[in-house]
């Protein structure tokens, strides 16, 4: 009899698996399909769109957003969230620029920026781990706080001039590919393996899927959360250095709006806000969608007044097509 049972459950297994694969792929395919449609339409409207130069430009343009979104993916997988990344970006960027201005050393500036991100991220992690309030509201409070900090430390004005950082990040390229694109790629690969192969990544999924079960399995929830938020902070620090380099300056509001765009990219890429699931490759798709749409609207000459409406329609459509009931 136990054979009969086993056959059945085998069948069940395969059925379910096949079904799941199909389902998961519908989502992925839709995103890829949406990307392709946009590319084709834009290419028809403006052949220059497909020039290597423009494609590299797109990658260059999304690099900071991409980096932030990759970090946010780690958090969303663990059912976390950090709304303060935009403000953190501003603070870390200002610290970078101020340090370079004060010491003349790009290296020190970069280290200071990274450390700032790491420390703020760890603080966020500690607040989230030791409180029952949702990360949404805790990091919303931190976002407001950090926006204030950015204004205070910058004196409310742009901090200009980053010397060698600008020459390297803003202008440097290897094999015609700008350095920020490499930085984005490295962060992508690191996050990919972190989520897929590392124990920490596994715990992120476990906490996101069922925190109580994870706790009962002996996973040190608080420590893991702090680690995840700290890593996210460090990644935001990387983005801050990149963005400061690209702009050759740091502005108190340069990160404004990054949080929502990053989260949008992650969710469009298939990671749900409730956690337990997600891939950073999906996030890359989401980031490319946002970058492509903006690029293609400008290339197609869609007037300034209409861009927000069109972008909104495309985001909504992409999301809806991806997950019909």
């Amino acid at each position, binding site marked *: 009899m136990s054979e009969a049972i086993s056959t059945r459950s085998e069948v069940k297994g395969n059925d379910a698996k096949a079904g799941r694969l199909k389902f998961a792929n519908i989502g992925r395919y839709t995103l890829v399909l949406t990307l392709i449609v946009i590319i084709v339409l834009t290419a028809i409207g403006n052949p*220059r769109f497909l020039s290597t130069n*423009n494609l590299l430009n797109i990658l260059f343009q999304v690099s900071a957003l991409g980096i932030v979104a990759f970090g946010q993916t780690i958090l969303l997988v663990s059912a976390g969230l950090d709304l303060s990344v935009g403000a953190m970006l501003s603070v870390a960027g200002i610290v970078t620029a101020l340090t370079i201005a004060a010491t003349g050393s790009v290296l020190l500036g970069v280290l200071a920026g990274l450390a700032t991100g790491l420390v703020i991220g760890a603080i966020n992690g500690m607040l989230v781990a030791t409180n029952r309030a949702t990360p949404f509201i805790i990091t919303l409070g931190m976002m407001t706080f950090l926006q204030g900090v950015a*204004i205070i430390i910058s004196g409310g004005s742009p901090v200009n001039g980053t010397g060698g950082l600008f020459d390297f990040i803003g202008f440097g390229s290897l094999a015609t590919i700008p350095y920020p694109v490499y930085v984005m790629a490295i962060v992508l690969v690191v996050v990919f393996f972190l989520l897929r192969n590392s124990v920490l990544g596994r715990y992120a999924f476990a906490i996101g899927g069922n925190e109580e079960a994870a706790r009962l399995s002996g996973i040190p929830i608080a420590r893991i959360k702090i680690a995840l938020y700290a890593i996210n902070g460090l990644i935001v620090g990387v983005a801050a250095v990149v963005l400061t380099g*690209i*702009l050759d*300056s740091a502005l108190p509001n340069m990160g404004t709006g990054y949080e929502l765009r990053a989260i949008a990219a992650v969710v469009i890429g298939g990671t749900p806000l409730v956690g337990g699931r997600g891939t950073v490759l999906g996030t890359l798709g989401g980031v490319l969608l946002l970058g492509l749409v903006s690029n293609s609207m*400008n290339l197609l000459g869609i007037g300034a007044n209409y861009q927000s409406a069109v972008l909104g329609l495309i985001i909504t459509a992409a999301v809806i097509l991806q997950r019909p009931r």
Partner: protein
Amino acid sequence: DTYAFMRAGPDPFYQYGMEAVQMAAEQLGDEIVTYNANNDSTQELANIQDAITQGVDGILIYAVSLSSEKAAIAQAQRAGVPIFFEYGYDPELLDKVAGFMQIDVPTFGVPVGKFVGETVKEGKVAIISGKLGRGDAEAYSEGFKKGLTESGSKAEVVSEVPGDWNRQMALDATAQILTAHPDLKALYVHNDDMAVGASIAIERAGKTGEVLLASGTNGAPYGLELIKEGKLAVSHANPPSSASVMAYRLLKGVVDGSVEPGQYYDAPSTMITKDNVDEAQPWDPSKEQVAEWVKMPLPEPVKPAPGTN
């Protein structure tokens, strides 16, 4: 006396105005309380109410929006607190306020358009606009186009994209415009912040010198820097520093009765190019500079140009 200085948002422009007023107030023995509306009309109204509660003697305000200040003025009027606007003119309200000082928004882009038209006789021109929805960005573009046409140039505006007063957005937009129009002759951006981003994109595309970059407003320190470096051809400067000091002194005058309320003043503005960059009024003035502004004769009221609002 105690005066409220209200900024519309966190942008550096207001920061420079605020710092200049604080320096001037120190020299004139007044106290300044500062408020930030964070670009939110409701918060602005709340700030005005709160300042009234606090008992300030006058309010100096960079309004969040052009001409939506009826409510704010009504509040101040009811409480008998004079309110002086550095932005947000509405002809109907002139007799209800201590005064208005503003650049002439609809025509502010005109001289820039003329300047570009005189240099670029034909070819493609693009515009990167500030954040839409407040009324000024739209006006700058219109004025610019008018000036371009009036200059007799055959240059044509081929692209208008949003830059939201944001360096990064302007950087990206410039790169995209240059992709779509590699033969672009000139680029008009609405302020110096976006000019910084645009100049980086032009440089990255290897087109420094090929594309004429013009900035619509500001004359900010980083804009002047660009002009000195030859990366920005012109900026229509409207320093918040000297303007705010003058507005503050006018408000003081209204309070002590030496200035007649309800008048309109032009905010100081100059077209800054490489030739006169050293004469530009600084945004971050020294004490001495402020002392000079404090002693300068007050500006004369003018009749606002028709259509100004």
